[in-house]
């Protein structure tokens, strides 16, 4: 099998999908496995209660009112077990879950307990206990703990060009970056924030931007599927998510390709008009669901050796705010998908939703350290040893034991 020489297009520098492929999980290979691991970072803080709802919790409906997703909602939520149900926008993840190829961890959080996106993302991606100046991510450091791949000299090292990568994959292990041909357009969220800023500071710019948004909406509406009306831009977003994730999977599926990759999706900071059932968040979850399906398809036979981890910097407030959205919170969900998982279950030490059970009286209380989940995958899937996980990958995390039993292969 000859090395695939990436084309200029594939090597265009940008913050697309990133892989480090000079290092391979040799120990796992010695067992006859060839594991793949893809990390998807959701930037902006996913509302875990809107993605996976505790429909069996007696306090659920009272907490979210008509924004609560339920089994008899329109559309009805997808049942996971007797207590949890998945947002109806995620039928593919539900199918994977039923097939034992998805695990959902609820009420999970990083060690970060403040409410800044930048700092929260730093903690999530650096793997450190608190924010600070760091330039390496836990995924990259995990790779360097694996044995260097002898075949990776020369040509592959020359691909170590990705200076612009999500923090989680930045570090000493060389990375290759690939960029979708079409970068996503300026998001509706960025436009909304900018318009809000102009309205308060500069009427002329505000008018100019309003005209632009109006035109853009009309242009997009022309191509919209009439039977399934979506917010403007939803189709473009779905296409972008699916192309990014599907291409990442194609690289990972190659016999000589990289084995670990990461990508980031923006737009989850739903302070206003969250659209849990139909609308913004439902569209985002649908696009994420499409991305997972694209990975499964592109992986083909290697899907059974794959784990995809979907993580976010923190959760959102348990209650809906005054602008039909949710604000920065604490615990949320982590989604795992892939044929290598011993899936089909929700892992949660459920903290409850009564006011006294909420973190600071407002957020879902974290009962699982996200690092335990990630350490469990890194140990049992890629065979990174526990001492390295506790010191180099997630420094000072020895008390946080790797979660056991996530993989079919223990």
């Amino acid at each position, binding site marked *: 099998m000859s090395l695939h020489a990436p084309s200029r297009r594939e090597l265009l520098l940008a913050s697309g999908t990133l892989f480090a492929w000079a290092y391979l999980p040799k120990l796992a290979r010695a067992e006859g496995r060839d594991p793949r691991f893809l990390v998807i970072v959701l930037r902006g803080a996913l509302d875990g209660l809107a993605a996976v709802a505790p429909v069996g919790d007696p306090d659920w409906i009272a907490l979210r009112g008509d924004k609560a997703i339920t089994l008899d909602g329109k559309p009805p939520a997808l049942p996971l077990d007797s207590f949890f149900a998945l947002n109806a926008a995620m039928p593919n993840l539900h199918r994977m879950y039923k097939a034992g190829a998805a695990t959902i961890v609820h009420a999970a959080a990083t060690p970060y307990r403040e409410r800044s996106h*930048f700092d929260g993302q730093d903690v999530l991606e650096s793997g450190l206990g608190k924010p600070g100046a760091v330039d390496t991510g836990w995924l990259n450091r995990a790779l360097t703990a694996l044995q260097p791949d002898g075949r990776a000299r020369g040509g592959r090292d020359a691909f170590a060009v990705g200076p612009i990568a999500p923090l989680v994959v930045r570090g000493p292990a060389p990375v290759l970056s690939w960029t979708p041909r079409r970068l996503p357009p300026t998001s509706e969220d960025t436009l909304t924030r900018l318009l809000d800023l102009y309205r308060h500071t500069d009427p002329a710019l505000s008018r100019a931007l309003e005209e632009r948004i109006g035109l853009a909406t009309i242009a997009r509406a022309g191509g919209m599927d009439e039977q399934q009306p979506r917010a403007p831009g939803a189709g473009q977003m779905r296409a972008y998510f699916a192309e990014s994730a599907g291409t990442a999977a194609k690289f990972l599926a190659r016999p000589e390709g990289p084995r670990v990759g990461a990508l980031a999706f923006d737009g989850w900071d739903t302070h206003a008009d969250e659209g849990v059932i139909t609308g913004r968040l439902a569209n985002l979850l649908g696009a994420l669901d499409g991305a997972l399906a694209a990975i499964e398809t592109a992986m083909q036979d290697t899907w059974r050796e794959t784990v995809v981890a979907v993580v976010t910097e923190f959760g959102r407030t348990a209650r809906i705010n005054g602008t039909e959205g949710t604000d920065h919170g604490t615990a949320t969900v982590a989604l795992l998908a892939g044929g290598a998982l011993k899936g089909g279950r929700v892992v949660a030490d459920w903290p409850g939703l009564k006011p006294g059970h909420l973190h600071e009286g407002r957020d879902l209380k974290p009962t699982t350290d996200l690092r335990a989940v990630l350490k469990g995958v890194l140990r049992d899937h890629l065979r990174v040893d526990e001492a390295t996980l506790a010191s180099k990958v997630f420094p000072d995390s020895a008390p946080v034991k790797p979660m056991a039993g996530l993989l079919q292969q223990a």
Partner: protein
Amino acid sequence: MQAHNLLGEPLWRPSAPKGFPDESAPWLNGLAQRLDIANLLARRVGEQVDPREVFEETLAPLASTETRQAIARAESRPQALALLFMAPEFQRR
């Protein structure tokens, strides 16, 4: 170069002998293109810089409270940087 063209002020080729107009109307018309470029640029460099530091070193002395908050509350560094590029204080200098 391509960015210059998109911005409506092609290098060496002003549309009138007296140069690019100084009044603001034509510049406002290019807002959409500048937004796309700001967005693109922010996605390319936004991961590597701390927008709060960039803000302090550039716009801070003349920035409004609203601009400062919009940047601090952005959901990601690239978004913060795009907002910084598009801030009224940046657009009108």
